[in-house]
């Protein structure tokens, strides 16, 4: 591999491999069969990943349009553009669709599905039929909820807090809840499939500490799917029973407790943040070494940090309830535990930075997204510590500061990682190269647009603008207009890839098996891979991230 000395430039110009002639090889997973049935009844994890990719892209568009409406309404302070009710329904569509139908399945269901078997050298996931079933369950639930929130309208926000959702809202809450409950089963089954696959399907020689970090983070994510999702399922079942039959668990009139719902909800939904974040960290941990041509710094620490994050995240849910009448002792404990999340997060960020140090860097689109991700994730993470600080939380809880904070994590983190991963593995998935200049331009648009949209919201929050406000005092208008203006740049940044990536499907240059000179088993097979992934049993290298420039393997005496 003599790529370290090549000048930067077009991806193919430095490609040392001859692209394999795709036309003569119609038996890759995309072309092996072409009937509609072969797509909708496929059990190939790669095709199922594409089914997910298409569905979540559609959901992303719906959620983004709703966000556009929200930002449009907030251009004026007095609610002249939209009634309060319409605004509330718009932000509920945005939250419900983005969280439950885009962010949670985003990276695991697409790249996780596509790559885990490839990365561990397996022919498929352990339960291919279950994998397809998961997609159908996902679509059924999504359809239920989409009909409810888009056609019917729901005004509870994505958090469905009782008793607003159980007794007071007159909107289509019930079908929305049923849909979200159904989607939970899809998450559980996907997580189950990943856990079993990673445990049992690794190729000979693929030991745990030879797994790419992407697989580690998906393992951690799957554990959260398995352990946290049933709790939200229960909470939603109780909420459904409460709304339909007045069971009383969350109703103070019968001795129930509305805050109990918040506990059950956040016991899932805080770990759900790591369902969204951990896979993104996995993507970044693949991109950074590939574009630095250097071994990932501190591999074991980064792997353990994934498990650490997945564990500590189960013990911090109470930080959503500091001002909700929780006992002081509980608040102190949850605050302290929340600070501990900083440790594994810092491990990741510093190790990525150290990987770049003395590497041989190419600033192609995936790397631009990865660098953007690091910056935004750091800001999002540290502002999370502001929120975990009890006295500060008393001020900025439920304000735009929170909105800005979690968008830095969800959009700056998950969406950037998703797009980075999409560009990184696009040649592998489709066998085509996208337009590199357009890729860089839209990465820049997204980075700038994102910051213009969401940075003003930190200030708005600290000034005291509460979230979910259809109208607001006039002194907040300038920052809101700035934020709305930024969202148009962001929207353009999202539109470009949809166009040039689709264009590349037919007109892009053919990709070689390994256009980035990356390491990892997925690059050992053809692009796109054959239906059963590998021609024979893949040879597992002795060390993960076997790049030309080697950093020390830290914290261990192994090599």
């Amino acid at each position, binding site marked *: 591999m003599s790529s370290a000395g090549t000048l930067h430039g077009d991806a193919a110009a430095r490609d040392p491999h001859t692209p394999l002639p795709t036309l003569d090889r119609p038996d890759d997973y995309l072309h092996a069969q072409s009937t509609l049935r072969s797509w909708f009844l496929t059990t190939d994890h790669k095709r199922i990943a594409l089914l997910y990719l298409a569905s979540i892209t559609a959901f992303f568009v719906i959620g983004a349009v709703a966000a556009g409406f929200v930002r449009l309404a907030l251009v004026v302070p007095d609610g002249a553009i939209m009634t309060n009710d319409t605004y509330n329904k718009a932000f509920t569509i945005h939250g419900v669709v983005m969280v439950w139908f885009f962010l949670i399945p985003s990276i695991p269901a697409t790249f996780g599905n596509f790559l885990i078997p490839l990365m561990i050298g397996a022919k498929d996931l352990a339960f291919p039929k279950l994998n397809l079933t998961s997609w159908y369950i996902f679509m059924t639930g999504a359809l239920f909820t989409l009909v409810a929130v888009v056609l019917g309208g729901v005004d509870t926000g994505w958090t469905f807090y009782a008793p607003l959702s159980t007794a007071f809202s007159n909107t289509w809450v019930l079908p929305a809840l049923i849909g979200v409950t159904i989607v939970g089963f899809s998450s559980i089954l996907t997580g189950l499939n990943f856990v079993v696959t990673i445990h049992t399907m690794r190729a000979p020689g693929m030991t745990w500490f030879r797994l790419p970090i992407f697989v580690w983070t998906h393992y951690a994510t799957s554990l959260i799917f398995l352990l946290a999702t049933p709790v939200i399922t229960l909470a939603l079942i109780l909420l459904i029973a409460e709304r339909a039959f007045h069971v009383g668990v969350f109703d103070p009139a019968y001795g129930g407790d509305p805050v109990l719902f918040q506990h059950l909800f956040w016991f899932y939904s805080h770990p759900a943040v790591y369902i969204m974040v951990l896979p993104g960290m996995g993507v970044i941990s693949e991109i950074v070494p590939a574009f630095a041509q250097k071994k990932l710094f501190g591999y074991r620490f980064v792997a353990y940090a994934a498990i650490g994050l997945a564990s500590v995240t189960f013990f911090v849910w109470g930080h959503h309830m500091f001002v909700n009448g929780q006992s002081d002792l509980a608040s102190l404990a949850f605050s302290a535990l929340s600070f501990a999340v900083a*440790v594994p997060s810092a491990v990741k960020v510093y190790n990525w930075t150290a990987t770049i140090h003395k590497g041989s860097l190419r600033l192609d689109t995936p790397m631009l997204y990865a660098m953007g991700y690091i910056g935004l994730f750091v800001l999002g993470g540290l502002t999370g510590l502001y929120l975990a600080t*009890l006295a500060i939380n008393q001020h900025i809880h439920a304000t735009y500061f929170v909105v800005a904070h979690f968008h830095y994590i969800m959009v700056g983190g998950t969406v950037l990682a998703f797009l980075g991963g999409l560009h990184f593995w696009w040649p592998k998935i489709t066998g085509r190269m996208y337009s590199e200049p357009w890729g860089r331009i839209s990465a820049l648009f997204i980075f700038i647009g994102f910051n213009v949209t969401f940075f003003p919201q930190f200030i708005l929050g600290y000034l005291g603008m509460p979230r979910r406000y259809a109208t607001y005092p006039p002194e907040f208008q300038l920052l809101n207009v700035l934020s709305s203006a930024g969202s148009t740049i962001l929207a353009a940044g999202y539109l470009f890839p949809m166009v040039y990536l689709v264009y590349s499907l037919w007109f892009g240059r053919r990709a070689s098996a390994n256009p980035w000179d990356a390491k990892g088993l997925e690059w050992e097979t053809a692009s796109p891979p054959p239906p059963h992934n590998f021609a024979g049993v893949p040879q597992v290298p002795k060390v993960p991230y076997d790049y030309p420039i080697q950093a020390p393997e830290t914290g261990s005496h192994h090599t």
Partner: protein
Amino acid sequence: MKAQSALALWPPAASATAVETDHIILGFTVLTLLLTVPVFLAITYFALRYRQGEQADRSTDERRSFLIEISWMLIPYVLTLFFFGWGAKLFIASRHPPPDAMVVEAVGRQWMWKFQHPTGQSEINDLHLPVDQPVRIRITSQDVIHALYLPALRLQIAALPDRTTEIWFKADRTGTYRLYCSEYCGTDHSVMDGNLTLMTQAEYQEWLTHGGAQQSNLAAGRVIYEAYGCAGCHDGAVAGVKAPSLVGLYGRPVHLADGRTLTADADYIRAKILNPNENRLAGDGEGEGGGQGGGKGSGKGGYKQVMPSFRGVIPADDLDRLVGYLKAYDRVAEGAPR
């Protein structure tokens, strides 16, 4: 009212606790910058310095990496823990009111705040309080979860339907500041706001004794008119429900079903709110259960009597405000203040 510029960059602080909260956040921001700026600079520098094709020393050091890992795990963490301690101290202090604090009872409902002063006066959505006096706000909700947010004091606390929560503060700067509901509570969440007016002790006593609360009664009455759902039917805001308009009702003659004619005075309006099935109105005899065609309704055909009784639902002081508002409804009818 407030002189608010279109762009404020720092919120006013009206208590020592608020100032200290600002210190915590400023200190935390300094620490954040210390932790992040080097990383951002390093990433940018490395990206340029070690770009592919650049001549650079790429030899790696095999030693010390364990130490590096441990130090960047623990040093930032320990530094941030300082702010955990500081924030916790301030938070705990805000939970334990001094014994001499004056107690204000607050109630949230969709979509209004009601504050009751220790001397008995109450006000809607606005809150007048003295400075240099510890104030304890005991708060509850009549329906969904709300939260009272006082940005100038850097405080908020949830209003829960099943219990009372509380918060205390000692303001030290007079002025008018915003107060909000910060827990999403349904359609009009964003208009469940008002003003927090902090005044000197003398001004506060003056305000209490000279019925300062009266000044905002019309606005308060309007809030109640909406919060108890009157507007939904009588102003036609809810589709499919038709109820007589109450504009200009006060002082007009009302024809009843039994042939009598009454003048719609305060007592009539009050009785009608508490017991809508009494004094059935004329002009809509066919409606089952009688009809209600007060004011100009009589010419319009029938209104089905579907209004629930508000006896035991609306407290006396709120009823006074509501009646007061209806008395003046012809004057404030269109473009009514919130």
